[in-house]
Structure formats: C-alpha cells, structure tokens
C-alpha cells in the first residue's frame, strides 16, 4: 500500500517535470525548435502527442516492473506461482495485450495520417524556389523572377555564435506567402532542412521533389544540410531571412537588376585586362573552389588534386576549360558550366593559370569560354 502511493507520487513529479519542460522548451533546446509555419506547427503538435505517449508508456512499464521486483523478490519470502501461466489470464493474455497495443497504435496512426496529408498538400504556390544542394553550398533559384542566390559557409572561430551557422548570402523569403520549394542536387544527396519553417526532404541528383510552407513570423531561421554529403557535410548551413512582402519585393527588384547587369557584362564581347580577370578570378575561386582545391591551390591529394603546377592548369587552355565546364563524371569535380557564366569561368581559369607560381601567362576571355561550351 505504502509503496503504491510512493510510486504514484514519483510518476506525478516526473510527469510534472516533463510538462514544465514543454513550456520552457524554446529557450533551453530540450525539444523541437519553436515552429514558425503552419506545417511545422502541426508537426510539432503531433510530435508532442507521440512524445507524451512514449513517455507515459515508459513510465508505466518502469513503475510496473519496479513494483513487481519489490513485491515478488525472494528475499521478502515470495514464492513462485507455478500455475499462473495455465490460468485464465495465461490463456487469454495473448489477445489482451495486442488489442490494447493496437488501440494505442491506431490512436497514433490517425493523427499521423492526417498531418501527413496536410504536409503533402500542395496549395497553389505564390512563389517557387528551386533549392539545389551541391558539395558544399546551396543555390536558390527564384523561378518566377530570374534571381539566383548562392549561399556559402561564412568562416568563424569555434567559440563564436555564428560558427557553422552563418552564410555569406542569406536566403530571403516573404512572410504569409504560399511558398513551394523544388529540391534537387547536382552531385550527391543533400537535405535542405530548416526545422522552424519546413520539413526536410532529400535533395536527389537528377530528381526533383516538392515541399511547401507558409511562414507566419518574420525572423531569421537556421538550419543545415541533413543528409551526409561527404567532406563538407558539417559545413553546409542554411540561413533563411523572412521579411515582409514589401521588403521582399524590393529585394527581388534589387537582385534582378544586379543579375541583368552581370549578365550584360558577361555577354558583352568585352576584352578584359589581366588585372581585372585575376581579381575577379581570385574572389570566385575562393568562393567556389577552395573547399576542395584549397586557397594555396595545393588541393588535398590524393582526393582533391593540386592545381598548383598541375598539367592541366599549365597545359592547353582547351583541356582546362573542358574540365571546369564539364566536370569529371564520377568524381567530386562538378560541371561548373551550368553554375557560372562565361565571364566567371574565364576569370577563374585565368586565375588558376597564373596564380601560385603557375606561369601559363595566357588570358582566357569570356568569348573563349562561349566557344568552348
């Protein structure tokens, strides 16, 4: 008798702690992050339902077992009931347990299915963004307005709050808008995941699938790549900046203007000077290529070859352009032709041929790249 009350008490305290921790979750990170969209909200509720069930089942089993252990321990003189498994209970419990468990199962599957339908429902999108994962950065294409954002890791020291969480270019989205994401990848699997605003779906090279969301709160949301993609898997953070619709439109206008200026610059059959190409080339190289070939051009042999003094970077221009534009199938070296415009490729290749003591000496102009494509 005495014991029973005690175990009830314990149940109450532990349960209480759990409920308390619910309200404090957001700050202390003991639970899923605070949802900021309709979808993640209902997923969060579902999670709370199953988590509570899991918790109660574990507590009930623990209490039951502890109770039995105390009551039927031999040192208290308990004697075994050798006939119990032959009694009524012994004969019918095989039915009883499954029925009860089935009941609990169905009460989980029901809400689960409902939320699934909600997650997979694709309302008409007001904004569609193609999200592409590559080793190791994210590219966002706003399909309705020719805007592209390439988002790379921003370096920090391990003791800084931004370490592995901040990027050079933010991904900007409007609040209260039906947004559709098209997920894909260029090389290996990745998964774009920002827990507060959208569920995760894998990015699969060669395939596209959709998720959608409607974000209800402005703010900055963090996430990171959630599917192992190799060396830089820990270095693919995501930062989403959610702003008002007006601000978003301004931002898009700005980006569109920038993009068309860059395109005009690249396609004008201008001949560039070495200094300009080297400067641009260095910047682009640092952004796109250092993850593998390193700042000093020495790579990480044997996996990522050195470009410093390499046969390709000092040999024929055509071969060099070919590798950069078309990539090397079956290796981490991607086809950059699709991601970089003529001017950018020209700049990078020029840089590689003249940096780190490489002395090819030649210049590559956008027009050369165009004809090499």
């Amino acid at each position, binding site marked *: 008798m005495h014991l029973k009350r005690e175990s009830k008490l314990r149940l109450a305290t532990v349960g209480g702690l759990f409920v308390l921790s619910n309200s404090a979750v957001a700050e202390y990170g003991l639970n899923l992050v605070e949802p900021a969209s309709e979808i993640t909200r209902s997923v969060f509720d579902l999670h709370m339902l199953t988590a509570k069930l899991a918790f109660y089942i574990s507590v009930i089993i623990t209490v039951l077992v502890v109770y039995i252990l105390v009551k039927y321990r031999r040192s208290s003189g308990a004697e075994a009931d050798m006939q119990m498994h032959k009694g009524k209970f012994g004969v019918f419990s095989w039915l009883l347990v499954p029925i009860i468990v089935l009941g609990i199962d169905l009460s989980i599957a029901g809400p689960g299915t409902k939320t699934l339908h909600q997650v997979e429902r694709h309302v008409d999108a007001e904004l569609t963004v193609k999200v592409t994962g590559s080793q190791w950065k994210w590219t966002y294409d706003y399909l309705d307005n020719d805007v592209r954002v390439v988002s790379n890791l921003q370096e920090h020291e391990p003791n800084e709050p931004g370490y592995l969480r901040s990027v050079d270019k933010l991904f900007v989205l409007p609040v209260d808008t039906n947004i559709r994401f*098209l997920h*894909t990848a260029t090389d290996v699997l990745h998964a774009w995941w920002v827990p507060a605003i959208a569920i995760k779906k894998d990015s699969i090279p*060669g*395939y*596209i*699938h*959709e998720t959608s969301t409607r974000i209800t709160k402005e703010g900055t949301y963090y996430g990171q790549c959630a599917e192992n993609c190799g060396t830089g898997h820990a270095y693919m953070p995501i930062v989403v900046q959610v702003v008002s619709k007006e601000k978003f439109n301004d931002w898009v206008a700005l980006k569109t203007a920038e993009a068309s200026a860059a395109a005009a610059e690249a396609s004008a059959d201008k001949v560039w000077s070495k200094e300009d190409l080297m400067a641009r080339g260095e910047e682009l190289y640092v952004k796109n290529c250092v993850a593998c070939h390193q700042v000093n051009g020495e790579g990480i042999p044997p996996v990522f070859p050195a470009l410093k003094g390499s046969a390709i970077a000092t040999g024929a221009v055509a071969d060099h352009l070919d590798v950069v534009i078309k990539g090397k*199938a*079956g290796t981490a070296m991607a086809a950059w032709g699709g991601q970089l415009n003529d001017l950018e490729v020209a700049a990078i290749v020029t840089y590689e041929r003249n940096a780190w003591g490489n002395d090819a000496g030649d210049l590559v102009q956008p027009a050369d790249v165009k004809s090499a494509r």
Partner: protein
Amino acid sequence: MTSNEDSYYLPELSKWPVIAATALFITLLGVVLWVNGGSLWITGLGLVGMGYMFFGWFGQVIEESMSGKYNAQVDKTFRMGMAWFITSEVFFFFCFFGCLFYLRTISLGWLGGEGTMARSNMLWDDFAAAWPLISLPNGGGGLYAEAKEAMGPMGLPLANTIILLTSGVTLTWSHHGIKHGNRFQQVWGLVLTVLLGVIFLVCQAYEYYHAYQEMGLTLNSGIYGATFYMLTGFHGFHVAMGTLMLFVILVRLLKGHFSNEHHFAFEAVAWYWHFVDVVWLGLYLFVYWL
C-alpha cells in the same frame, strides 16, 4: 557398404574450411586490386585455391558417402542444406528483378514526368520515358552511350528458352533412368543435358557479342543495358556453374556412384538446374519480352 544407422556422422578435423576461406579472401582481394587497375594474377591464384579446395573437399565428401558413413539423418541434412541454399539464391535474383521493376515502373516515370516526382522532368529536357530505354535522360552524353536498338524476344532468346526447357526434360528423363536402373537412359539423358547447357552458353556468348558489336547495347547504355546484362549475366553464370556440376555428376554416374536409392548428389544438381530454368523463364518474360 556398411551403414551406420544409429549415429550421426561427425567429421574429424578438416583443413578444407580454412583453405576455402583463405582462397575466397585471396580471390576477392585480387578483384579489388584488379578493378582499381591492377592485374588479375592474384585473383587467378585465389581461383586455383578454390579449385583445389572444391576437388579436395567434395572428393572427401564423395568418399565418405561411398563408404556408407552417412545415415538417413545425414541425408536429410544434405537435402535441407541444398533447399535452403537455393532459397537464398532465389532472393539474390529477387533483388535484381525487384530493381528492374522499380526502375521501369517507378523511377523512369518520374524522370519522364509522371508520378510523385514528376517535376524531375524539368532537369531532363525532352526526355520521355519508354521501355526498353534507348534514349537516355541526358541524351547519351557523359559516361553513357545510347544503344541502337533493344534486344527482341524472338530468334536466339527464344531458341535459348527452348534449349533450357528441353534440358529440364532430359534431366528428368535421366533421373527416371536412375530410379529405374536404366543405364542407357541415365547416361544419355545426362549427356544431352550437359550438351544443351553448353549450347545455351554458346548462344548467349554469341548474343552478347552481337549486342556489343552491332547493336551498341553495352553495360554503358543506361539502365536498359545495365539491367539486361546484370540479369542475363548472373543467370548465365549460374548456368555455367550448373553445367559444370552436371558434368561432374556425369563423371560420377559413369563411375557408377549412384544407386537407384542413393543419388542425392544427382538430385541436388537437378534441383539447382530446375531453379536456373525457372529464373530463365522470368528473364525471358520480363527482360526480353515485356
């Protein structure tokens, strides 16, 4: 022959298992080196070891069997062993058939713009899903080269079907011969079966040659070529093994190893052969025909 009815035969220490493990290790180590640009001689060494092991181990088993060390219970063990081994083989092929169905009916649809991931078609301009898949999503650039045409079900494949089915019949005929002590029937049934097996292999080799030389159908021609060679190749490998086993059985038959009650080795190989037969029917249906 003395038969030991009441005690289960337990072999003494045997060196063959360790030799088998070592030989397999060397063979596979050799394959790793080979696919990474090395030469094949280590694999060869391993295979020689395997051959030595098979001769030795099976030789010992045959000897034990002939000297009557195996009682009925041991016989039952062998039967079960073979049956479960074939079961595991069934699942090996199940894997490849499963892949074929998945690729044909699910992922190809996505690439071609149907189903849950229909948007994938955005990435592959103008790609339309069709089976057999001749024009590839990427238009046949990069690593892959498109085939000129697909392998039809008529001609050689049909002939091969008939050959294999016939070989099943001749094998059963031979088995009846053994059961009823008809020497002519046992021997010629088995000889015919071995011959049919060899003819099948020759036809298939010719088919591959034709596919590579004239149809441009290779391992690199996208998933049609890949699944085609994977399924027919592994099947062909099993036929080759089966033929070899049948040949060994034929030699043993000629030596008079089998009585009309005791001929489990024959039966085991026959089961295996029928299994290979059934797999072929599946292949013919799903790889060549549909």
